[in-house]
């Protein structure tokens, strides 16, 4: 197994770990929200200030969470991931 193959597999593992963690986080937040909607209706109906119920606030937060998770992924991918991919490509081109 060449060094670049090992580096590629390490990168694949890192990408898979992050992708899985972030996907799990999104599912946890979203299904947490759905389960609250299903099982804690009165709680979500609590008015925090006039016009704003806990449910509406959490709903908007689910959308913000989706943005935040995507932001985390893009930051990692645009720097660490793309850099590694570039060096792997340069390395393999050089060795040919």
């Amino acid at each position, binding site marked *: 197994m*060449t060094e*670049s*193959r090992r580096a*590629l*597999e390490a*990168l*694949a593992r890192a*990408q*898979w770990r*992050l*992708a*899985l963690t*972030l*996907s799990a986080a*999104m*599912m946890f937040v*979203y*299904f947490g*929200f*759905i*389960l609250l*909607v*299903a*099982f804690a*209706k*009165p709680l*979500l*109906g609590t*008015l925090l*200030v*006039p*016009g*704003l*119920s806990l*449910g*509406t606030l959490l*709903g*908007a937060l*689910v*959308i913000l969470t*989706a*943005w935040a*998770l*995507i932001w985390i*992924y*893009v930051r990692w*991918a*645009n720097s660490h991931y*793309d850099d590694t*991919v570039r060096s*792997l*490509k340069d390395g*393999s*081109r050089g060795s040919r």
Partner: protein
Amino acid sequence: MSGLGQPNPVAIACFFAFVAVTLGITYWAARRTRSTEHFYAAGRSVTGLQNGLALAGDYMSAASFLGIAGLVALSGFDGLIYSIGFLVGWPIVMFLIAEPLRNLGRYTFADVVAFRLRQRPVRIAAAFGTLAVVCFYLIAQMVGAGNLIRLLFGMSYESAVAIVGLVMLAYVLFGGMLATTWVQIVKAVLLMTGAFLLALLVLQRFGWSPLVLFAAAAQRYGDAVLAPGQLVSNPWDAVSLGLALMLGTAGLPHILMRFYTVPDARTARTSVSWATAFIGVFYLLTFVLGFGAMVLVGRDAISAEDAGGNMAAPLLAQTVGGTGFLGFIAAVAFATILAVVAGLTLSGAAALSHDLWVNVVRGAHASEQEQLRVARVATVVLGLLSIGLGIAFKGQNVAYMVGLAFAIAASANFPALVMSVFWRRFTTAGAQASMLVGTTSALLLIYLSPTIQVGILGHPSAPFPWRNPGLVTIPLAFLVGAGVSLLFPEREAAERFAEVEDRVHLGPEGLTEPS
């Protein structure tokens, strides 16, 4: 007395302007559409921002603009559950799908699943799932188009369906993916602008504060409108629907196909960021539009026009902006349907021609001209089919068909796609079994669900308790795919996994030479 159903000069002018501009784009695109790479993938020349807008255009159907605004107007908080469900699939698209898809495939998602597996069986199964999703989604859009345009423009149902079908056919047939992409972009910009202006006009009346608006809604219809209500009566049904919305987004063929229009994986990533930003803003705006319609138009006036609430946003436009603004919103809704139908037809045509004809019938040996000709024939067939289906389903309740399309996409396409990219031991038989079981179990359980049994056939009860089968069929498709793969290992598929890893991360150049 509302202005709905009367010929509205602004609506007609706006609609003709939209059709004229988009046909102009089609003419421009047609001169550039010379190869299959142009026809299916716009020559891979689309930028991240453009593709983000086009993804948003493909995804935001009339159902989300009119349907969700109506749902919020009539049932308050419960409608927001849909707004949120339609957004949360996008992070999954980003983390698991977009980049591998771009790097592994050429035109369809079956390219990815079949990459290291045996082509024919995988492509047949994938085309089956794709065509099922496309057909149900098309029926829902066409019937929606007919009803909507009848209500908005006072035109007959059949002519509305025929106009949508023929104009869409012109885009796809002559302009291919390049024209379709620009139609989506124009539509997305119009839709976002319309929703934004409408929200501003609403908020202006409530001191620019959504909270004052929500409080006004609570004052008029009680605090219950801000709390979960009757829509989610069975918790597991809600989870099942949520799962199907989330993973279905990551399995919709017309969405997946869009990732082939960009030059590389990094641009695919950028386009999901833009798409999620636009779609998120849009669904946050539906909070304001829905509650705005509830307060300013009133629930009785909304249900009087259409029991499903679909006319909430147009009525709101009339209330806050007059007949001219109503005309603009009506034209936007028409444009929205046209664009979504074009995207669907193109992805269905790709499954028929690229997957079934070129790779199954011709064993990947077809000349460029033949491929392009077959793609165009498939487009015409699907275009005429969509008009026929639209007319055949006139007067039927087809609201469940969008949910059904998402359920099939989530059960048939998503599990096979993820396993083929990330799991070394996935096999041809596993892919085939997963896609076929996903499609058929979703179809069967929807047929046995209360939606069809009680809602349409009028039986007192249904054998399957939930309205959406996702919670059963998605895990089932994963289990069947994994089980069959483990029972019947395929050495070559496992050996070629290194090639998949190469391509997923490094693109077509890879570390090893592609075979």
